[in-house]
C-alpha cells in the first residue's frame, strides 16, 4: 500500500471536516465581519442533538434501517441548530452591531462557554458513543489508500455544500442581498435590502451547515463530547483565516490545506528530522503555517487586499 496516498486521503478527510466548519465561519464573517467564536459550539450542539435523537429512535424502533435513523437525527439537528444560531444572533450579536470590535468577540467567547456548559449539564461529562453499526461500514482501496463509506460521504457532501453555497451567493436574490450587505450595509439598506433579515438568514444557513458538520464528525470518529466543538472550531477558524476569511473558496482551500499539512506533517516529520522532532509537534504546524501566511499576506491566501479591518 502506498503511505503517501493514504496520508493524502487522511488529510483530505480531515481537511473536509475543517472546511465544512470553516464555511460557516467565513459566511458570517463575510457578511458582518464578526468572528462567531460560538460556531464550533453550534457544531457540537448539532452532534449532540442528533445523537440524542438517534439514541432515542434506536431505542423505540430498532428495526428501522440505520440510514433512516441517522438521517432523522440529522433532520432534527439542522433546524434545531438553525434556531440556535438565529437566537444567538438576535440576543447576543445584534445589540452590539455598532459597539467597539472587542465587545462582540467577547460575547462570542462567553456564548461558547455557556453552550459548552449547557451541553455538559444536559448530556453529562462523558464521551457519548455514536452507534456506528447504523451506518454502512464498507472500506475501499483506492490507489493503495483505504477509505470508508462515511469518509466518502464527507468528501462528497463538502463539495456539494460548497457548490450549493456558491450558487446561492451568486445566483439568487438572497445571495445578491448578502453580497450587498457585505459590501456596505447602510447602502444596501437604502437600496431596499432588509439588512437584519439578511444577517439572520446568514446565521441560519451557517448554523445549519454546522449541524451537518457536527453529525459528520461524530459519525466519522464514533463519538461526541461537550468539548469537541472548541478545538474543531479553532482549527476551522484557522483554516478560514488561512484561506482568507470571508471568501468561500478560501475557506475550502484553507480547510483542505490545513488537513493535508497536518496529516503529512504528523506522518513525515519524524523521518524528515531524523527523529529530532516528532508527531508531538503536529498541532504546531497549523499555527506555524497560519502565522507565516498572515505575516506574508495579512489577508490570507485568497483574501482581497483592500480589506481594512481595525
Amino acid at each position: 500500500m502506498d503511505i503517501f496516498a493514504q496520508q493524502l486521503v487522511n488529510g483530505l478527510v480531515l481537511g473536509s471536516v475543517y472546511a465544512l466548519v470553516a464555511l460557516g465561519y467565513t459566511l458570517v464573517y463575510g457578511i458582518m465581519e464578526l468572528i462567531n467564536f460560538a460556531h464550533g459550539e453550534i457544531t457540537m450542539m448539532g452532534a449532540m442533538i442528533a445523537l440524542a435523537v438517534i439514541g432515542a429512535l434506536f431505542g423505540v424502533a430498532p428495526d428501522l434501517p440505520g440510514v433512516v435513523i441517522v438521517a432523522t437525527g440529522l433532520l432534527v439537528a439542522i433546524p434545531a441548530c438553525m434556531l440556535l444560531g438565529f437566537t444567538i444572533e438576535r440576543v447576543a450579536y445584534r445589540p452590539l452591531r455598532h459597539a467597539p470590535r472587542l465587545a462582540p468577540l467577547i460575547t462570542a467567547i462567553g456564548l461558547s462557554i455557556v453552550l459548552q456548559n449547557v451541553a455538559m449539564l444536559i448530556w453529562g461529562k462523558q464521551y457519548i458513543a455514536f452507534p456506528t453499526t447504523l451506518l454502512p461500514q464498507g472500506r475501499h482501496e483506492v490507489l493503495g489508500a483505504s477509505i470508508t463509506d462515511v469518509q466518502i460521504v464527507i468528501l462528497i457532501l463538502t463539495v456539494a455544500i460548497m457548490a450549493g453555497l456558491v450558487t446561492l451567493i451568486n445566483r439568487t436574490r438572497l445571495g445578491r442581498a448578502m453580497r450587498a450587505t457585505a459590501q456596505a450595509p447602510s447602502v444596501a439598506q437604502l437600496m431596499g435590502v432588509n439588512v437584519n433579515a439578511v444577517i439572520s438568514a446568514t446565521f441560519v444557513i451557517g448554523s445549519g451547515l454546522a449541524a451537518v458538520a457536527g453529525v459528520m464528525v461524530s459519525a466519522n470518529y464514533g463519538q461526541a463530547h461537550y468539548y469537541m466543538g472548541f478545538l474543531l472550531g479553532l482549527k476551522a477558524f484557522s483554516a478560514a483565516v488561512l484561506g482568507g476569511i470571508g471568501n468561500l473558496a478560501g475557506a475550502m482551500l484553507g480547510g483542505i490545506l490545513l488537513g493535508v499539512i497536518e496529516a503529512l506533517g504528523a506522518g513525515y516529520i519524524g523521518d524528515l528530522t531524523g527523529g529530532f522532532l516528532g508527531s508531538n509537534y503536529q498541532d504546531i504546524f497549523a499555527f506555524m503555517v497560519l502565522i507565516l501566511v498572515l505575516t506574508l499576506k495579512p489577508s490570507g491566501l485568497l483574501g482581497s487586499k483592500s480589506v481594512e479591518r481595525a
Partner: protein
Amino acid sequence: MKSPLLTISLAVALGLGLTACGDKKEGAADGGNGTVKIGQSSPLTGPQAHIGKDNDNGARMAIDEINASKPVIGGKPVTFEIMSEDDQADPKTATIVAQRLVDEGVVGVIGHLNSGATIPTSKVYSDNDIPQISPSATAIKYTAQGFKTAYRVMTNDAQQGKVLGAYAAKLGKKVAIIDDQTAYGQGLAEEVGKAVQAAGAEVVATEHTNDKASDFTAILTSIKGKTPDVVFFGGMDPQGAPMVKQMHQLGMNVQFLGGDGIQTPKFIELAGADADGVIASMPGLPLDKMPKGPDFQKKFEAKYGQIQLYAPYAYDAAYVMVDAMKRADSTAPAKYLPELANTNYEGVTGKISFDAKGDLTSGPITLYKAQGGKWETLETVQPQ
C-alpha cells in the same frame, strides 16, 4: 471614581467580604468527642468527575465500615469522618485544597487522583507532616521527591510499564508506541518503551497525540508503514477507542495494547465491535481472585453502583491508614507515620506493603482482553 486608592480599598474590602462569606468552622485535629478527620481529594467536577467520585465513594465506604466496627485507638473510642474536597484535577486548585484540608485538621489524606495534582500537594502535606496515600497517582516523581509523608497503593509507571513492555515483547518483536502527551500517558509509554527494548524486542515507531484529539489516521498510517506486530497506547479511553477504530479502518490488523486508562467499560462502549481483542492492564489482582474482592464488589455496587476505576484502591488506602493508626495506637500523624512504613495489609486489590520511598513493594498487574463487550481476565503478572 475620585481616587484609585479609594477604589482599591473598596475592591479589597469586597474581596474580603466575599472571603468572609466562605467562613467555616475550624476543626480541631482530635475533637473532644473522639472525631478524627481524614481528608479525601479528587476531581469532583470536570471531565474526570466520575472517576473522582469513585475514589470518594471507595474511601467513604471503608471509613463507614471502620466506624461500624467501633474502633478504639489510644484507649478511646474513635469515630472517623471523611472530608472530601474537589481539586478539579488542577495543580493550582489542588494546593489550595490541600492547604484547606490541613487547616481543617485532618490527620491524613487519601488522594489525589491525578499525578499532576498529587505532586504539588505532596509538598504541602510534607511541610505540615500529614501522611498522604494516593490511590491512583502513577508518576514516578511523586514518591521520588524524598517526602516522608508520600505513599501510594497503586503501582507506579515503571512497575506497570515493565509488565506491559515485557508482555508487548512477548506478543511480537516489533512494537509501535503512541502516547497522549499527558503526565500519565507519556510517563507510562516511556517506561513501556524501555521494557520492550529490555525484553529484546524493537520499538519501531514512537508517535504522539494529545488528550483532546480524535483523528489519529496520520500517525497510524505512518506506523503502518513500519509494520509493527503490536501498537501500545499510553492514554485514556476517549482517545483509545477511536484510535483502535481508525486502525481497523486503515486495514491494520495488529494487536492493540493499553494501560489502565483504557481498561474501562467506557472504552468498550465507545469502540463497539472494534474493541474485541484489545488487551489492557490494570494494577492489582482481579477482584474475583481476591479473598475479599467479590464481597467488596457486591457491597460497593449495592451502595454506589458500578465501580468506575480506582474505588477499590481508595478503599484499601483508607484501611491501610487506619491500620497504621491502630498499630501505633494513636491518630496523631507524627505517631502513626512510622507505622505506615511497616504496613503489611491484605487489601481487596492485593497485598500491600511499602518500600523506603512509599511505593508498593510488590504490585501484581493483571492483563485483560476485551471480548464480546466485556473485559475478560487474561493473566496476572508478578513483577520481579
